[in-house]
Structures are given as C-alpha cells and as structure tokens.
C-alpha cells in the first residue's frame, strides 16, 4: 500500500538532508510505526507522505501510484492525526468537525454523536474548543482524522498529551481501525505505545532507518531467552527458556523455597533501540 524507496528530503535552508535515503513499505491493514527521538525525521517522513512536502528525491508510491501523480483525490484516501491540537478555538468541537467533513465526498460512516462518544467528548461537543483541555483537543484531532473513513491514517504521536485512560482508549481504537482493514502509519517516541499497537516498527535516527521488524522479533533478537527467578530467601538464579518445564535445576530451585518473582529476560523495545542505534530516546 505504501512503498518508499531511497527517500531523501532536505529542508530548503538546511545544509544536510533530514531524510537520508530511507526505504520501507507498509502493507494494507498493517500498523506501522516510526520510532525515534525528536528531530530524527519521523514527522518529516509523514509530511512527505501526506504531500505537504513535495520536493523529495526517491520513490514514494501509494497503491502502486507515484505520490506525485496523485491529485486532490489522494486526500479522500488519507486521514491525518497531527502531533499537536489544531482547531478553530472559537468554534465548538462539533462545528470544527462538521466544517472539515464538508470537504470530503465520503459521508461520515459514524454520526457526530458516535464520533464524540468514541473519545468521551459527548458532553463537550457543543462547547467552544478554547474551553477544552489539551487532552480533549488531542481526542478531537483523532476523530477528525478518521471521520471520513480513510483507508490510510497517519498519526503523529497519537497518545501525546493524553492521560493513561484516554491513551489506552486511543490505542484500542487504532487496533480496531486495523481490524477494519485500515492501514495505519504512526510516529512516536513512546516505545510502550509502539510495542502495544504496531505490527512492525522502524527505528529512525538522524534521518536513517537502523532496523525494521516486528517488536517481537526485535526483542527476541536483542534480548536473552531466559527467566530470572528470585526466591523468598533472596536467592536469584537465571535459567534458559528452552525446555524450562523439564529443566531439573530450575524445578529443584523453585521447590527449595517460595518463589518471590519470575521475570523473562526479554529486552524492552527501548533497550533494543539503544542497542541498535547507540542512542537513548530523548523526547
């Protein structure tokens, strides 16, 4: 659905390229994540793909058609959830959504009430957006991005500024969109978010992709396939995961006293990121 090959992008007044020949593809119905620190080029890559920046080099294809060959009908196909809230503050949430809905040929599949209900904004739909908190504005961003039922949805830091409950709901909605066959491309610096919802992720640092794989594979590749067992008496021991159930030493160890905790030694996505890129994630 999205094919990108050797994509190079340089801002007009910049000396060096922000995107230095990145290549990746996103399949239909996939949740694909770009992970990286601020300034890595995540949002720039998205902006190229939603045609805000048109002066790129390399190949970018959507549904087999060059991005540059798409006319305005491309925007019927995509939805964009921006990183920061951007609404008319003097208008109500409902007026904001209704305004942007008029630009699309597709009538919204969900009613306004349903859309606002999805993100717990039913009570606020007729209030001016200037009275919304940042989290509420971000939720409004989310429903504006999906209201015209697009096939491809770009989310830039979709859980940024949200409380844990709202963030969880948004993640669940993204998973539901994937289940409905939507292609989703997110950028985030939140490894936890990526781990939870992405089918595949790419690590992007300084405009270059350092690794692309499923979170599971990446963690497996860079982590230890072992468990760490701690007993009530304070004794600690590490056992390989392979044949753990028939490992005599392991069985003897856990029988010797009460088990306080057992942890797998799988690396977190953040640890993998640091190992692969040699950089920590700075927001």
């Amino acid at each position, binding site marked *: 659905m999205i094919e990108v090959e050797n994509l190079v992008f340089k801002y007009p007044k910049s000396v060096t390229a922000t995107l230095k020949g990145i290549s990746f593809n996103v399949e239909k119905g996939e949740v694909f994540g770009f992970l990286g620190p601020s300034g890595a080029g995540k949002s720039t890559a998205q902006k190229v793909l939603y045609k*805000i*920046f048109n002066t790129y080099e390399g190949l970018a294809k959507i549904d087999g058609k060059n991005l540059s060959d798409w006319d305005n009908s491309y925007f019927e196909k995509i939805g*964009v959830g921006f990183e920061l809230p951007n609404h008319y503050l003097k*208008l109500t949430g409902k007026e904001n959504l209704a305004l942007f809905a008029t630009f699309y040929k597709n009538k919204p599949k969900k009613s306004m009430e349903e859309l606002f209900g999805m993100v717990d904004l039913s009570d606020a739909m007729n209030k001016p957006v200037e009275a919304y908190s940042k989290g509420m504005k971000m939720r409004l961003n989310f429903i504006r991005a999906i209201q015209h039922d697009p096939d491809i949805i770009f989310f830039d830091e979709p859980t940024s500024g949200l409380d844990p409950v709202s963030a969880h709901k948004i993640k669940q909605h993204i998973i539901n969109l994937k289940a409905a066959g939507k292609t989703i491309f997110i950028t985030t610096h939140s490894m936890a978010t990526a781990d939870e919802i992405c089918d595949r992720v790419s690590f992007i640092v300084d405009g270059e992709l350092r690794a692309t794989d499923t979170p599971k594979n990446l963690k497996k590749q860079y982590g230890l396939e072992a468990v760490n067992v701690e007993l009530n008496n304070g004794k600690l021991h590490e056992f390989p995961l392979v044949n753990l159930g028939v490992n005599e030493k392991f069985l003897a160890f856990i029988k010797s006293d009460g088990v306080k905790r057992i942890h797998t030694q799988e690396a977190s996505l953040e640890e993998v990121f640091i190992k692969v890129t040699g950089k920590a994630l700075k927001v």
Partner: protein
Amino acid sequence: MKKIIKLAIVDFKIIFRDNTLKGMLALPFILFALIIWGVPPLVEKYEFLTPYLHLFLAVAVIENTQTFSFIGSMVLIDEKETDVAKVYGIVPLSKVAYIFSRFLIPYLFTVALNIILFVVQPFFEIGIGVNLLISFTSSLVVPLYVLSINSIVKNRMEGMIYIKAFNMLVLLPLAAFFVPENFKHLFGFIPTHWIFQSVENTTLGLSSNLFLVIGFVFFVCLIFFISRIFIKRHFI
C-alpha cells in the same frame, strides 16, 4: 459552492465570537456617517477643503476595503498560529479553491460597501457603470492585503505590526496629489494609486478607464504572484 458558503459561514461565526473582529464591522458605518453627515458641514465651514472633496471620497473607498482586509488577515493569522492551516493542507480542496473560497464573500461584501458609498456620498454625480468598475477594482485590495500579510507574518504580534504598516501603505498614494504633476505616477508602484487616480478623474468628469485597466491588471498580477508565495508558506 457549498464549500465556499460553509467557509464563509465559519468565518462569520469566528468574527462574531471575537470582540476585536466584531468591532471592525462597525468601521463602514462610521465611514458612511462621516461622509454623509461629517464632511459636508466641515466643507461648509472651511471652504478651502472644497477642492479636496474627491480625496475624501477616495480615502473612504480605500478605507472601506480595510474592514475585511483587517478581519481576513486576523482570521488567517489565527489559523496559522493555531496550526489549523495545516489541516487545509491535507483536505481534498485545492489551494486555489481555498483562496477563492476564503476571499469571494469578503470581496463581494467590500464591493457592495463601495457601491453603496458611491451612491450615498453627497458630493458628486457618479454613474452606475463607473461606480461598479471602481468598486470591483478597488475591492481587490482585500485579497491582496490579506495574502500579503499572511505570506509574511508568523503570529498575531507580527501581524498587528504589518497591518499598521499596510494601512499606511494603501493610503500613501494620497501624496501623489501634493507633488508636481510630472511626478504623481511615481506612486504607481502601489496599486491603490490607480484607484485614487480613477476616483479623481471620475469626479472631474474625465474618463478613468485607463487607470482602472492599469489598476485591475496590476492587482490581478500581484494577487497571482503573492498567492504562489502564500500557498508555499501557509499550509506547512
């Protein structure tokens, strides 16, 4: 058309919910009051002002365009400052259609205000034909002004400074009436100069067609050129 009307309604909702912008809507009424009830007694009392009556009228024509120039500039600056402009970059509305839809209604309102101004002013007999021509040409100040401001500024603070400067700039050709005849067209690089000259010729009973054609072509070329810059900068 539906999109144009929808955007115009949204713009008016924003105007009526913002006290500063709402206040600006009173400007044409104040201007009309001054022209109908303020200037005549003033000229009666100070007769030396009589030869300058056409300048009062020309200034009123240009000031009429300032209502929607100011409002339009502030609405678009606000759109940029709140990043709403970015949303227009990713909707199925061409950038040209966006410009057209944002300016058609304010432009037509300004045309209407100037037509009314020419009808209600008590100083000169002005035919409907030339009234329409001057009104349609002079109202092009609105899109040119708003597009120019929004191609330059990044926020409200900068916007206010440039609006002040532009307010003076559009009236600068007034100076052409106080310099030797040979030098008056030195102000021709400011498009409103051609409106001032058209109004003068009309009030003297002379043809203003040439000045109106120059003014119209100048305005359209500038709008075309500034639009390209605006499109590059506004939606990012």
